[in-house]
Structure formats: C-alpha cells, structure tokens
C-alpha cells in the first residue's frame, strides 16, 4: 500500500505547486497551463478515491471544455500589456495575510477533528460500479436539482451568447 500514499503525496504536491504557479505567473497562458496541470492531478486524486466517473468528467468537462474556453478567450483578448504590468493589486499583502489566517483556521478545525477524519474502514468496492450508482442517484434522488442544473446551464449559455455578441 506504500505506493498508494506515494502517489497521493506526489499528486498533491504537483497540484499545490502548480496552483501556486497559476496565481503567480504574469502570463495568463502560463497560468492556464498550470491550472490544467492542477486539474489533471486532481483528476488523478479522484481516481484514487474510486471516483472514475468524476475523474472522466473532470477531464472532459473541466479540461476539455472550460479550460479550452479560457485559452480561447485569452487568445481573443490577446494583451501583451498584461505581461508587462504589475500582476498584483495594491492590497495584495493584506489580502494574503487574511487568506493565510483562513488557512490556519481550517487547519485548526481539521486538527481538532483528526480522529473523525481518520482512514475510513469502508470496503474499496463500496462505490462500485461507480457510473451506475451515480446515474441512479442523479436520476432518482436528485432528479429535480439535476433538471435545475440543466436549466442553469441553458440560461448561462444564452446569457454568455447575449453578452459576448458583437453589437
């Protein structure tokens, strides 16, 4: 099982590091690439957590869809100036401090509950067959939210089209 942990820590490290790169690169294209790396390693974590379906969705939707959209827009809004400009705004340090405090607080909470969040005793097959289970839950228990989500997507699409349309 040694190997399992190693994979986790490697993936986690990749995720965090490239996330940091996302918010520090000046060039949005580089940020996008590192974001893709993060998303990929997160997808790997999903695989580890027996969520194949989610991993696939992550790859198709997030990376194959959303990120392409991002890159596309970056190319459309091709701004050389941003590369030369100061990437952070005036209040970066205070905001950073606040965020770090938030991190500390989360850490404290998790530390308090570390026994509760210990290794689960669940059998590995509990979430299998993954796709079928998700399908049933989605279409039976969560029918209404599912429909609402589709409606939301529709609205978002129309809205995006309307706003981005050249007038």
């Amino acid at each position, binding site marked *: *099982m040694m190997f399992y*942990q190693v994979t986790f820590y490697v993936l*986690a490290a990749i995720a*965090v590091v490239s*996330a940091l790169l*996302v*918010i520090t690169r000046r060039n*949005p294209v580089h*940020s996008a690439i590192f*974001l893709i790396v*993060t*998303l990929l390693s*997160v997808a790997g*974590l999903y695989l*580890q*957590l027996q*969520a194949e379906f*989610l991993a696939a969705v*992550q790859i198709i*939707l*997030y990376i194959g*869809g*959303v990120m392409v*959209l*991002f890159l596309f*827009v970056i190319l459309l*809004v091709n701004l050389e100036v*941003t590369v030369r*400009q100061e*990437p*952070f*705004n005036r*209040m970066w340090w205070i*905001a*950073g401090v*606040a*965020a*770090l405090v*938030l*991190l500390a607080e*989360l*850490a404290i909470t*998790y530390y308090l509950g*570390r026994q509760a*969040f*210990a*290794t*689960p005793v669940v059998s590995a097959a509990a*979430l299998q067959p993954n796709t079928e*289970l*998700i399908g049933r*839950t*989605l279409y039976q228990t969560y029918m209404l939210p599912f429909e609402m989500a589709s409606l*939301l*997507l529709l*609205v*978002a699409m129309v809205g*995006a089209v309307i*706003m*981005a349309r050249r007038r």
Partner: protein
Amino acid sequence: MVPTSHYLFLSAALLTIGVIGVLTRRNLIVVLMSIELILNAVNINLIAFARQLASVEGHVFAIFVITVAAAEAAVGLGILIAFFRNRETVNTDEIDLLKW
C-alpha cells in the same frame, strides 16, 4: 489508504491559494481561474467524504459543482469579452464603476 484529513488539508491549501488569487490578481482572467481552483478544492472535499461515508452522493454534488463552474466560466468570460470590447482592458482595478 490515505486518511481523509490529508485530503482536507490539500483542499484547504488549494482553497487558500484560490482565495489569494481572487483577491490579489489584477488580471480578470486569472481571477476567474482562481475561482475554478476554489471550486476544485470544494470538489476534493466532497469526493473525500464520499469515500469516507461510502455514499455516492458526494460525487453527485461534485457533478453539480462542476456544472455551476462551467456556467460561471461561460458567463464570466462572456462578460469579460463584452467588457474588453468597451474598455480595452481586463484589469480589475480599472473596473470601478460600482462606485456610482
């Protein structure tokens, strides 16, 4: 097996990074990307707990989150393009009309 708490720490880290990005970056596109980071942090939590509780509902909610993320990205980028067309910039600190 890796204890759930480690996943939680990871997602906390990603969340914080995302928050910092949202709060501090000037480039609107990067801000949107940071939001995606935040949402991913949430998803990691959901999935990790789904494993711990052996319930697939976490996955379902993660799917919803991804849906929302997609919608958010679409609308956000739409606004961004519309804005860029008017102002020739995507810097957050040049977008200050809220003042009125």
